[in-house]
């Protein structure tokens, strides 16, 4: 048996109770009522059909699908003694033997700036966090750009929402966006963990009784049928400002929903892309298209690989001095 301290048990049952109280409104919300609300205020709920074989073959003739994903891993201890590696992969369903990899690394040590101020400020941390996001987003977008040129695909599925590229890799992203629009390549973001609160915010606006903001993830849990999709009206979509159209899809039997972003200029294709995602997602999975899962698996930098790389290609003395933490030596 595990020995668990009573205090911790209390804390957790306390949390359960708090959530129960806070979300009473949401949890007690009738499924039909919420669906009506969504239909009226957010967007139409549509039932999607999977793409037919001939449709898929047509996509293949037009260049197939490219999946883009990135991954990062970190060795070392606390700031600034760590190295983070980034890797992006663009993989076409047609040119399966030509995976397109890009990589980058980051360590505060090499930047030189934080060296003088060992005490970390909050802004410093955020700045570092930003740097990481910038590096990762940039190589992902670069990989996508290269993929466009090399594979000339029908559509590109990016892993994650598109909005973050606006934030972290603006210039490159604009470049990609322009090329895609020019060449008529559909650019889509598939969001595993939706973080928006579009429905919640709308609920709050409409009903005074609701004083807290709820996330879409919480609200939509179990509310859509398998294969159903909500295309969010432009009016309520906050991403609209950045030039995207969005939707939610329940793409598998798991009760959670996933999100989809598409360029505004290509919004007529959002339904087709949603159907593509539905087609490529195993029914009993967590809801992610298999192709993106495969790309994700291939791009992943495992701890073993990271460690192996460091040991193989880095001077052992430097490696020990800078990047081996006490924690690493525990086992």
């Amino acid at each position, binding site marked *: 048996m595990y020995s668990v301290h009573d205090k911790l048990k209390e804390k957790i049952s306390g949390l359960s109770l708090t959530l129960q109280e806070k979300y009473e409104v949401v949890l007690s919300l009738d499924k039909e009522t919420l669906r009506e609300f969504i239909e009226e205020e957010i967007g139409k709920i549509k039932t999607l059909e999977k793409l037919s074989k001939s449709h898929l*073959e047509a996509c293949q003739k037009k260049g*197939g699908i490219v999946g883009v994903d990135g991954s990062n891993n970190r060795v070392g201890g606390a700031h600034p003694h760590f190295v983070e590696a980034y890797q992006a992969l663009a993989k076409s369903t047609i040119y399966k033997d030509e995976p397109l990899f890009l990589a980058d690394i980051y360590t505060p040590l090499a930047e030189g700036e934080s060296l003088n101020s060992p005490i970390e400020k909050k802004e410093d941390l955020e700045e570092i966090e930003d740097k990481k996001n910038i590096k990762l987003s940039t190589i992902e977008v670069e990989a996508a750009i290269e993929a466009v040129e090399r594979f000339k695909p029908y559509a590109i599925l990016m892993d994650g929402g598109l909005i973050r590229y606006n934030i972290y890799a603006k210039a490159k992203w604009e470049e990609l966006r322009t090329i895609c629009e020019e060449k008529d390549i559909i650019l889509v973001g598939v969001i595993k963990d939706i973080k928006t609160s579009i429905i919640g915010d709308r609920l709050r606006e409409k009903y005074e009784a609701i004083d807290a903001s709820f996330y879409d993830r919480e609200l939509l849990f179990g509310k859509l049928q398998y294969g159903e999709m909500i295309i969010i009206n432009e009016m309520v979509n906050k991403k609209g400002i950045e030039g995207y159209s969005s939707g939610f899809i329940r793409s598998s039997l798991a009760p959670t929903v996933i999100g989809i972003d598409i360029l505004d200029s290509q919004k007529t294709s959002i339904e087709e892309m949603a159907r593509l995602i539905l087609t490529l997602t*195993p029914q009993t999975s967590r809801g992610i298209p298999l192709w993106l899962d495969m790309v994700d698996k291939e791009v992943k930098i495992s701890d073993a690989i990271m460690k192996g790389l460091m040991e193989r290609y880095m001077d052992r003395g430097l490696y020990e001095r800078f990047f081996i933490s006490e924690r690493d030596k525990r086992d």
Partner: protein
Amino acid sequence: MKVVGITTQQEVFVGSKDRNFRINEFLIIEDPYQDDLIGEVVEAQTFNRYIPLNIYGDMVDASVIESLKSLGYNIDEDTIYISKVRLLNEALYPVQTGSDIRLPKFSEVKEIMIQSTREEGLVLGVIRNTDDMALDMDEEFKDILYTFEERGLVPQKEIPYIMDLRSQHHYPHIGVFGGSGSGKSFGLRVILEELMNQNIPTIVLDPHFEMDFSETPDYLKEKKDFNDSFKCLQVGVHIGVKFEDLKSGDLKNLLDASSHLTDSMNNVVDILFKPRDSYISFADRLRMLTEAQEEGNIEKIENRIISSGDAEEKKAWEKRKELFLNYDKTCPYNSVRGILWRLKRLENEGIFSKDIKEIEIGLQDGKLMVLQGNTRILQVFSTYLLNNLYHKRREYKDAIYKKIAAEYFPPFIIVTDEAHNFAPKGYDSPSKSILKEISQEGRKYGVFLILATQRPTLLDETITAQLNTKFIFRTVRASDIKTIQEETDLTVEETRRLPYLRTGDVFISSATLGRTVYGRIRAALTTSPHTLNPFDELKLKTKQKDDGLFNDIKEKLPINEGDLLDTAMELERDTGITYTIQSLEEKLNQMVQKGYIEKEDTIFGYRYKNK
């Protein structure tokens, strides 16, 4: 194909994107830092990193894979093939990862595959999974045999397995193991056919009456006639023991094989058996002694002598008295009775009515002598026979060594199925001691053993240890697999395959080669007399009987109800078979049921008529 992963001096992993590996095939590793290395595939696997059931716990369903195919991505193409290759000889250094791999040419593997020429060796079958190397094989090894597969007779595509007979001199004995239906008896048959081809003097102990080589199977176009090369002899009918030649030790063995002898009985034989005794003289002595002992004391016997009617009887009783006086003290009545009973049992089985001359002549002629009888009789007889022949051969060799003249006796091979009955583990049996002796020193005298059994676990361990070459067919029993694992150089992977071997597939663990060959026994040129399915046989016999009856009555049809008695009498006259009206009617009704004739109702009652 390349070497991948961590390598050692003994084993490497080989990966390929397009060629699937087969177990037991040979590969050449072109290591840039040492000479080409040759290895054997011991494990073969395929792997698809996307299909191994799931990615992050998600089951991938077929429709998604199908959709991806439509999009131009075929998941099967991401399958890779991996094999574990064991080097035949240890390398000097661990093999360089990344080394290229290629298939060997025949010339590169000839030495390790072919042990002997076709003329001098035993052509027993093929080495499995060698068809790639067999393409440029020397002509003399091509098309020399057929194998028998599910679809029938198949021409040879692989390298033949030719067992080197001459190496028997160093590695003399052979074991043939396998469960029932594994192809063991059939493998033994092929070995014996080859021994006949080579005119090797051979004795086969055949408790199943199956080692007859006169019938050829239907599937063969060219028939081979072995009739001059072998002879089936039944113990007690064609061959037996010449009582006059027996020494007291032989006799004790025989009696013991008949039924276990007590110490006291052994003693009785020592005392009562005289050299040059005939069966009659020995049996008489025993009988008269028991009769005297039955009288109880010397006075009663003397009374018998006095009261006997004629001189003959008197003389007989005087003889009994003499025996009684000489032996009563040393030979207890019960022991004498026991010996007499055992002796009679052997006599009734016909063991003493013939001799072994015919076997000796056959061996001198280089023939295969098949001795048939039930297991117990064979045990009894083989004990005597093998002792006798082995010592003949031994005397000859010893005489040569001592430089004195002696009659030539050839080297020979002893073959037996169900060997665990002849040399059981854990308890003594008369045939075991001679087999053990031969297993240990037969090599010196050129006497070799081929022992087949489905229960290697029950075979005497000393003997098992002396079996240098082992043919291992499908084995399912865990205890036998364990024994095989202990007694052979089969790897763990190979023993794991044992329960799943196809009939006729065999692991040959050979001391000459120092490794295990995975082979398939060739199609036999002859067939066992027991191949007719008993249910087919039953059907056939019933039909023969029915046809016979129909023939007999055919002329007499139609038979009216009232004519049954007449018909029965006619049948008795024609065929000598007696029917009652009732039994005839029963038979006729059966014929109706089987559709030979019809039964119809008429105004005069019913009648049987032709269809």
